[in-house]
């Protein structure tokens, strides 16, 4: 039996420990917001957070997630995460939308680590997330907008 904590709730799964976390989430827990794109950590569509760090769930065995907090797009509720999602909507980033869960999870993790990322930071953090609709111009702009908004919120809290 595999015991997982996903989006704050406990899950018990009777699956092979080598099953990729992606398929545990999608097929066994029913969280389908995390997407399958390549299966070899080349496209980032499957990005989730393990203890807040972005990982490619398609090559992460479910056993590696035991004892750690798994966060998927459905459970993203950090300030950075919310700011990213709001900026995504405000700037109308999505097209087909298939890769966007992964994009948002990577962007949220970036902002947790670097609240005011440079273009080089954005390139480094987002380079592993493919978008065939090429929404990259807006992804970059939305990350910057979310960073500004988070900074404003933080400033207000401090003031």
């Amino acid at each position, binding site marked *: 039996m595999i015991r997982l904590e996903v989006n704050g709730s406990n899950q018990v799964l009777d699956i092979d420990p080598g099953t990729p976390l992606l398929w545990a989430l999608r097929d066994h827990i029913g969280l389908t917001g995390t997407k399958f*794109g390549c299966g070899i950590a080349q496209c980032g569509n499957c990005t989730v957070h393990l203890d807040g760090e972005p990982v490619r769930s398609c090559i992460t065995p479910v056993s590696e997630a035991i004892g750690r907090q798994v966060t998927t797009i459905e459970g993203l509720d950090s300030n950075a995460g919310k700011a990213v999602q709001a900026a995504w909507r405000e700037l109308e980033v999505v097209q087909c939308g298939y890769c*966007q869960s992964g994009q948002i999870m990577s962007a949220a993790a970036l902002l947790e680590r670097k609240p005011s990322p440079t273009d080089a930071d954005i390139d480094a953090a987002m380079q592993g997330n493919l978008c*065939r609709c*090429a929404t990259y*111009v807006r992804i*970059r702009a939305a990350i910057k907008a979310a960073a500004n908004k988070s900074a404003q919120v933080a400033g207000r809290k401090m003031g």
Partner: protein
Amino acid sequence: MKNEWIANLSRRRFLAAGVASAAGLTLGIMPVSRAEMRKSGPGFAGSAPLADGSFQPNAFLRIGTDNQVTVISKHLEMGQGTYTGMATLVAEELDAAWEQVEVVGAPADAGRYKNLFWGEAQGTGGSTAIANSWQQMRKAGAAARQMLVEAAAEQWQLKADEIEVQAGVLSHSASGRSANFGELAEAAARRPVPEDVLLKDPDEFRLIGKRLPRKDSPEKTDGSARFTIDVKLLEMYTAVVAHPPRFGAKVRSFDDKAARKVKGVKQVLQIPSGVAVVADDFWSAKQGRDALQVEWDENEAFKQSSTEILDDYRELAKRPGTVARNQGDSGAAMAAAKKFIEAEYSVPFLAHAPMEPMDCVVRIDASGCEIWNGEQMNTGDQMAVAGLLGLQPQQVRINMLYAGGSFGRRANPKADYVLEAVHIAKMMPPGTPVKLIWSREDDMRGGYYRPLYLHKLKAGLDGENRPLAWQQRIVGQSILAGTPFESVMVKDGVDQTSVEGAANMPYALKNIHIDLHSPQLQVPVLWWRSVGSTHTAFAVECFLDELAVAAEKDPVAFRRELLVDHPRHLGVLNLAVEKAGWDEPLGRNRGRGVAVHESFNSYVAQVAEVTVRRGVIYVDRVVIAVDCGVPVNPDVIEAQMEGGMGYGLAATLASELTFREGRVLQSNFHDYQTLRIDQMPEVEVYIVPSTEPPTGVGEPATPVIAPAVANAVYAATGQRLRQLPLRPA
């Protein structure tokens, strides 16, 4: 008669189209409740009766007593913004509030939902969605508005023309009466459907032309949007298929002992396209497939390499092809020319590689077949499945879900992956839902590519450097050969999709000769975002640049002289070069290139600024001007220009699918390179104001970037690159 129709509707009797009134306004009912649709996500076609009290004046919208307006989109949302576009057109004439409108996908039903540019077929492609729906969706909204107004007039004992409608509310200012759509829905449903309706003048538009938010943004940013891969049905199995390593190979034998031992594997089935492993879930099915031993019969398999194909095409190009355009006397003009240039351009096979790999859910039982799919070729797939199963087309019910990209791949006249899923479901017990999922490797190696193409060009100039003659020979597989489209779109032996963008090039040369060879190969090919223009724009716009250099003229000035009779080409060209600052000098290793091209009746010019350093092309900035008629949603247009250009830029800089002895070398995104965020240039988009009917924006930005970048590389380095992807020395 019309009252009877409405009465029938309330009695829940299904009526097909046939109660049509105004041209283009198809009337009929879609028997499904919104609650049921919500429950099942977008695209759920269902078969339940209409919910009580709601008002469905035609096949394209429904107004609930809860004041919700549901627009039924006949077109697939695959990223291009069509759900938002369809809703905008309906809501405009309905005078609905944008917030009260939601969109669902239509079922497969050509009678009600045909693409008006495609005869009797429903489907999405060729950047036609807004263009063919422009009148139809507005009339649908206007008809409903009129029925609501008449209902209010009756209730309030007023004349219809005294009633105003704004943002979902009907009102009469003198009496102070008002009601929302929901309150009038039941009464409106009893009104006769109008014979014809008046549409707004453009200066009355409240929604068209505005940057309305996309309808699919919220659910695509919180993970709740449902794609085919997300469908979960009771007792559903997942199938993964072992395909042959070469096209044309067949299963000789297979050993499934190890595969069947994998936990979760339920069935191993031989189907025409390979061997399917059916399991409880994807990972078990994939493990099962990996454990499968298949021996393939490759006697009749494709065994050529890309280099051989290109050599064969060069040989073929030495002989005259089938004439696609012959104007003036290019032979005589060439003989009289003082200066000649000749060049060869080529492009490789390409996979579409949408982020969602091919997938399809099928359930077959005694009543027919139900399909869940990012459905781009509704009627084609419906007919193909009906044919395979011996059913009537209407027994094949298709739920059109969001597609995680397509770029043409999901619009396959051969219905490949859909039929594969049906073959598997057919062998399972009746009523068993099966979800077929292709891995990325299956997707990359499963065929239906943009074909490899070769262009041979020759041009002649007179003593004053004026262009006299243009000869172009095109060699490449016909996309339409062997499909139902062949009879319509292959004219006098010329597949129009092979020569579009070249045969109709706008430049004012007196003597033009363009011909075509369509060799047959076993490699399955298909349209790829912007179709023929993916290669013709590259060849024509680069060679025209070469001609400008030979004529010792600036590429922009040269184009302007040859486009005097094409104001829309000129319009976008002038706008793009002005915004780009065409004449401003750039630094060392940097260059600017331009291209202008019409596809699907939309006109796009792009100016690319590049830096070339140590054999690497960096595209720094791209300025895009587009003329697509009335801009329905400028934000969606800008997004399609950015993204369409980006999709083309991947093929300009990186993507290439190569055959070696019949095998595809690439398998996944590590060796089939696409565009990543650090390669995306700064993009500026400018829209030409227009009152012309709107044309599509999904594809026309894609073919323009390759020649713009190649011409910029020439400006930066003096190197003329004539093969995609571009590889500078």
